[in-house]
């Protein structure tokens, strides 16, 4: 009972504070504080609900329990992180995005291929590519190579479509100007068209970050060595060790946000001239 009341009070107080903060003039501090307060309130509410209603930890562990579990099993979590994120997701991400980028530049020279590949690429990007996972696990074995392959297949088409679109982003005037300078194909590519394509390329890179993590983790459901985040999640669910599952989820969430945030920061540095970055 006491927990339920605490929860309600915490929720009301947090929301009240946020309403007040939101009505203050928008500054950097309020823009950061409001979502953080909201998140903290949610976690407090979660803790109170679990304790107040005495929800069994095999259904929903309390945040404090997850934190305790996280603290004692950093070894396992680190091992899984290296296996899934570094070996599987990151290597696949680099290979897939790199290959898509090079393909896009090659395709760009032939308008015929462009007109053919764009619709097909868009179509493939909407397909449930994740279904390729069992096939690729069969081809490349259980270790990280197959996870990287799944990631490559998943990130390739979104990246390809975005880069091809980006390379078309220059207008006639700009290309004509390059021609009046007697710029070669390579010069106009490097000095004009690639920089102009950067916002699109980064859009593709950002979409690919989440896809890469999802691909690497889900591919582990179809077979993996005895480490890795996907493996740990599926086996721990079987053992009803839900606190460990949640600890893995925390890792995945932090890694996912950091990965996305890193690419977004890079984007800010590279495309500082674009209107969407100046505002």
């Amino acid at each position: 009972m006491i927990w339920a009341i605490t929860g309600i009070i915490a929720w009301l107080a947090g929301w009240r504070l946020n309403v007040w903060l939101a009505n203050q003039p928008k500054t950097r501090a309020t823009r950061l504080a409001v979502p953080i307060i909201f998140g903290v309130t949610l976690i407090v509410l979660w803790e109170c609900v679990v304790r107040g209603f005495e929800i069994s930890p095999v259904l929903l562990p309390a945040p404090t329990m997850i934190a305790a579990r996280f603290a004692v099993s950093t070894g396992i979590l680190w091992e899984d992180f290296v296996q899934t994120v570094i070996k599987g997701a990151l290597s696949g991400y680099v290979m897939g995005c790199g290959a898509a980028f090079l393909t896009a530049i090659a395709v760009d020279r032939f308008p015929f291929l462009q007109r053919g590949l764009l619709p097909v690429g868009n179509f493939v990007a909407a397909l449930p590519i994740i279904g390729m996972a069992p096939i690729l696990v069969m081809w490349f074995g259980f270790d990280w190579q197959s996870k990287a392959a799944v990631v490559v297949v998943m990130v390739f088409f979104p990246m390809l479509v975005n880069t091809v679109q980006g390379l078309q982003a220059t207008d006639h005037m700009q290309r004509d100007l390059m021609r009046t300078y007697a710029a070669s194909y390579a010069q106009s590519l490097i000095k004009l068209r690639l920089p102009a394509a950067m916002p699109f390329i980064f859009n593709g890179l950002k979409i690919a970050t989440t896809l890469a993590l999802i691909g690497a983790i889900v591919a582990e459901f179809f077979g993996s060595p005895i480490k890795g985040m996907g493996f740990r999640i599926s086996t721990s669910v079987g053992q009803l060790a839900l606190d460990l599952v949640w600890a893995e989820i925390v890792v995945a969430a932090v890694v996912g946000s950091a990965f996305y945030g890193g690419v977004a920061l890079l984007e800010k540095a590279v495309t500082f001239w674009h209107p969407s970055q100046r505002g």
Partner: protein
Amino acid sequence: MKAVWYRIGPILTVVIAIFVLWYAGSVALNAPWAYDKAKRAGVELSTSELIADTMNQKKPKLPPPHQVGAEIWKTTGDMVVRGRAFSKRSLLYHSWITLSSTLLGFVLGTGLGIALAVGIVYNRTMDMSIMPWVIASQTIPILAIAPMIIVVLNAVGISGLLPKAVISMYLSFFPVVVGMVKGLRSPDHMQLDQMKTWNASGNQEFWKLRLPSSMPYLFTSLKIAMAASLVGAIVGELPTGAVAGLGARLLGGSYYGQTIQIWSALLVAAALAAALVGLIGLVQNVVLKRMGMVR
């Protein structure tokens, strides 16, 4: 004629190229097994014999298109002809299972997405506190948590369609929120001022200006949401232990090395995705035309 070729020609070329590559790949990947078999039988394989063998293996590494096509026909059209369209071996049955949870998740996700978007547009506090979390929620690989959601909801006594639909919902609400927030904010100052000069109430402003002008954004997001919802439904079927649905066919196929079964499930899933997204595109065309937004 020339105009048609200009549009269709390149696409056709790419599709044909994909098929050629597919056949070449299946010859290359299946050849080792064919050689192996020939060596054990003590015969030499000529090139034509080798190719013929790679086209017709029982468990090929990469089944050629015609084998997959035959399997799809055997498990769909042929089943219908024999009047067993919904037997457990029919892909139609499995597609229906997946389709139903996809649609339920899609409807739930779209509803949640629109409700959140309206809240975010009309409430400053919600905008500042929830919007960042909506974006952050998508960096969490939800598909990874799918098995836990299924098992936990099963433990509380919710089973069948709903747990899978919850995963689909989580994946599909995000594009709708983002698209609808953009759409509901798309009327410019001029239009909003016009509503004010007409003394329109908040309700009228929403129904007669904001909602109609958000439609193009809504349909674009719905297409993405539908594709995401299907992925969610397929992955949601994995942890239930290969019972029913296209995801279960994928998992079952990977347990027993039935590559043809995996590929046929995959192609049917792709066709399903294409049909669903195409359907939304069709509705979009009709609705936007009636609203006078496209010519």
